[in-house]
């Protein structure tokens, strides 16, 4: 491989990362900031690919850029117009201007100091001989882990505690979101073009999620990436006016949200009961147990992230008992009648109406 070409690529990638980060943070328009943040996430996914971390690249593209971007865009849409272009520097009245300059300088100095300290720590870590003890331990025990992808082995076997606690964090976050209030009103049903796109996209996303889950055992992929792709299917359904996001309702939904933590605990405690350590899989069963836990984790992650996009506790659509299948997409008029249209949801239509009324006046 040509080292100079790789170096040029590295420098270009690093420069675009830095400039995208600066642009994201410096822009005063929240909407533009979110779009730039998504671009930053996608370039970051490229960097993960370059640094031989394909599992992380997949997760970054699906979660870091995709779902975070969707969450932020939904939040930007709700903000009142005047705060969208708020001035960063117009915080307080003129009296506080001096204090503000001092505060800003102190904060900037703090951040420069942090960057310097971090760089020093990094230099220390890179200059001392790289410790391969953990990496070697993973390689040596990979054969008994039940999977051949080392990252999946670490996540679901060697450091399964971490992943259990991570799923608990997800569960806590969604319970917090539920506690903060009801979900956003649903979107109006989309036109025929988006509806047919959703008809194609949702099955493809479900298939991709299943593939990523299965292939995660020996290649880049796994429950997180698969869950994120499945959640993206939920977001597409939500955007097409499907209030239920293809999720089950009420009690079943609660079981699905808790499935990740629940399956982990069930497997862990059963093993404890059988005289093995907590989450210490017998090598013969490891492969099947990991797939079992990953399937439950994928469903829980997908449901949690899709519900997070709603921004609150879902309202039970009492009229809509059968609306969980994508097939219900074609019943556009019925659904539009059932779900209240959000005011200002379709800016184009509104402005269109306004224009036509103006014309009538003239």
């Amino acid at each position, binding site marked *: 491989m040509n080292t100079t070409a790789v170096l040029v690529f590295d420098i270009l990638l690093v420069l675009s990362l830095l400039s995208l980060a600066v642009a994201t943070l410096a822009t005063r328009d929240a909407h533009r900031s979110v779009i730039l943040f998504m671009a930053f996430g996608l370039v970051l996914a490229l960097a993960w690919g370059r640094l031989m971390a394909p599992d*992380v690249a997949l997760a*970054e593209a699906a979660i*870091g850029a995709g779902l975070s971007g969707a969450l*932020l865009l*939904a939040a930007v849409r709700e903000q009142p117009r005047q705060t969208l272009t708020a001035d960063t520097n117009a915080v307080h009245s003129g009296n506080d201007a001096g204090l503000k300059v001092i505060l800003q300088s102190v904060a900037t100095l703090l951040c420069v100091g942090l960057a310097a300290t971090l760089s020093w720590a990094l230099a220390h870590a890179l200059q001392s001989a790289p410790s391969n003890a953990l*990496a070697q331990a993973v390689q040596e025990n990979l054969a008994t882990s039940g999977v051949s992808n080392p990252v999946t082995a670490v996540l679901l076997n060697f450091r399964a505690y971490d992943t259990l606690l991570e799923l608990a964090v997800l569960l806590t976050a969604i319970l917090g979101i539920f506690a903060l209030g009801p979900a956003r009103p649903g979107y109006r049903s989309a036109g025929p073009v988006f509806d047919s796109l959703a008809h194609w996209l949702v099955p493809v996303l479900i298939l991709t999620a299943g593939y990523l889950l299965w292939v995660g055992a020996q290649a880049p992929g796994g429950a997180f990436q698969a869950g994120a792709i499945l959640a993206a299917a939920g977001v597409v359904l939500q955007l097409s006016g499907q209030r239920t996001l293809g999720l089950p309702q009420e009690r079943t939904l609660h079981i699905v949200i808790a499935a990740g933590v629940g399956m982990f605990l069930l497997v862990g405690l059963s093993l404890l009961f059988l005289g093995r350590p907590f989450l210490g899989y017998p090598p013969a069963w490891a492969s099947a147990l990991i797939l079992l836990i990953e399937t439950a984790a994928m469903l829980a992650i997908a449901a949690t992230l899709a519900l997070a996009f709603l*921004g609150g506790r879902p309202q039970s659509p009492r009229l809509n008992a059968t609306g969980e299948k994508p097939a219900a997409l074609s019943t556009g008029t019925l659904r539009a009648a059932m779900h209240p249209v959000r005011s200002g949801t379709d800016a184009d239509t509104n402005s269109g109406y306004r224009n036509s009324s103006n014309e009538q006046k003239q």
Partner: protein
Amino acid sequence: MMTAQWLYGITGCLIVALGLRTALLHTLLLQRVIGINIMGAGVFLVLIAVAYRGPGEAPDPVPQALVLTGIVVAVSATALALALARRLAAEPDNG
């Protein structure tokens, strides 16, 4: 001597500082959330740079698994922060 590790690692340090500055100083809650996300991305960059072992060598899977966990925790924290901001905006005093 591994140029790539240094290049991406130092970039990660700079991105952490940039994100933290926005999280501390910006007036809009949404921009602060984005700042914290960018800060997290910088931390991930440092970790993945440390895990890199050069072309043709298998990277260290442990930091990679940490980052994977970090990405999922970051998105759930973002979702919770945005729900909190939404509730804050809905309160009469702040409306």
